[in-house]
């Protein structure tokens, strides 16, 4: 289906549907809004999306980045209508029915983006992963730690910590180290304790890196160098990473 955007009445209608889901979780998704000319409008592009299942937020971000890049659309970061339309198009994946045919929607920012709020924009289930993928489109191998969750899981602690700290997010060494420490490629998920506030957890990594940004330029710091600077509280994660890396090397 060709890309469109919901207009203001369309966004309001979709928001009302989300609100009504709390009282009637079996309400049918208002998919008619997608191509209803009273609720949506076409865009100046021939780009289209197709119904497909995404295993992770990473897979979705990669796909939407490709679609948006091919569309040639400008001003997409402020286009609430476009992102809300995409949410509606993929709503079955973003807010799936349970075994009884009922849906439980999360906060509205997950479906209708808050583009002007630096602490909420990234909660949108499509735009958030898209924006982070766009930043690392040349180094997507660093992103599993931030985007390995399924689409229905909004904001992991590691994702939130990075995306709320623009300097941290923009530093490849920081994302790379987080990926090495906290992402277990063998299991395809975060290591236990990654999102913890305790020693060695991602919040502590944020604190440590925030401290060294007072002294070093993160953009001139390699991940290997950063890894060697970590204090002992990260030892268990560093050890797990090194063991896994050496096994991988031996296997190959």
């Amino acid at each position, binding site marked *: 289906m060709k890309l469109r955007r919901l207009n203001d009445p369309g966004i309001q209608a979709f928001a009302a549907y989300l609100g009504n889901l709390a009282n009637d979780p079996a309400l049918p998704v208002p998919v008619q809004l997608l191509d209803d000319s009273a609720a949506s409008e076409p865009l100046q592009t021939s780009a289209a999306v197709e119904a497909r299942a995404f295993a992770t937020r990473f897979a979705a971000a990669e796909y939407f980045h490709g679609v948006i890049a091919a569309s040639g659309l400008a001003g997409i970061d*402020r286009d609430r209508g476009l992102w809300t339309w995409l949410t509606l198009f993929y709503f079955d994946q973003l807010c799936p029915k349970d075994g009884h045919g009922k849906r439980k929607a999360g906060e509205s920012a997950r479906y209708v983006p808050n583009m*002007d709020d*630096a602490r909420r924009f990234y909660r949108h289930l499509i735009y958030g992963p898209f924006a982070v993928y766009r*930043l690392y489109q040349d180094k997507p191998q660093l992103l599993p730690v931030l985007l390995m969750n399924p689409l229905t899981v909004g904001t992991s602690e590691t994702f939130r910590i990075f995306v709320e700290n*623009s*300097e941290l997010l923009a530093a490849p060494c920081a994302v790379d180290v987080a990926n090495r420490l906290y992402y277990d490629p063998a299991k395809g998920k975060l290591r236990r304790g990654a999102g913890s506030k305790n020693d060695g957890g991602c919040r502590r990594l944020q604190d440590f890196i925030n401290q060294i940004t*007072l002294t070093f330029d993160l*953009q001139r710091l390699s991940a290997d160098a950063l890894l060697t600077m970590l204090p002992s509280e990260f030892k268990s994660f560093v050890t797990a990473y090194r063991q896994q890396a050496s096994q991988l090397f031996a296997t190959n």
Partner: protein
Amino acid sequence: MPRRFNYTGRQKIRRADAAIRIVGSGPSLGFDAVLNLGTYKIDPQARVAVEAYRSRTASYKRFEYGYANNPVAPAERSLAEFHDEQGILFRVKVTMEEGGLGKLLAEADGIRPVESTGDGSTRPLLPVVCHPLDGEAWKIDFGTGSAAPMLAIDSGIPLRHQYATDPTFRAIAMPAIFRQILTRILTQEELDEEPDPEDWRSQWLEFGRRAAGTNHPEDLNDDQAVDDWIDSAVSAFARSHRFVDAIAAPTPA
């Protein structure tokens, strides 16, 4: 919360020495930077970089400006990836290679581009923005990083921009806003030993100093003294604007 001072020895680049102007729009969006680093004690071979970023779209781009003794703008200064200029901030970094690491010698962060209107108008201390607030009528949007706070009004409120200037709203909300911002600065933000007068934190603290009649306490770990100073600044501010009178005897519409 941590109270942080800059003890690293890195120098703060004054805003006046890092003037950045956004030029063009859409695909030709870019910027010009005028960097004046001559008055700083910086190794001439230190490297200079300008970073553009916008927190709410996770956008970032870095531009290398050569060496501190003669910063040279790169030919490519496109910000087309940002699509529009709204909310773009800049950071200037001066670093020296030391042991394979880029040690930070000087920095200016949260630089807002110079307004291109050139009409000499001053920038508001608390800009007003409107967006959905999920049930709240207003809140202080501190953003992330070094961005200055803004007053966010829920976009569902009719005449929302005027709402921020409504006398009753001001009487009720402004003391709370002032208190919240001062508390944030004195309990969470990094403060420099030499305040930059163009930094939002310095501007709000100066506003507080004028209201309270004294500087904020030197020891920011003295919670009682900090609280007392904030109370003093906020109440003096409220008295000077006669906020209670505004509510007790509102001006007829």
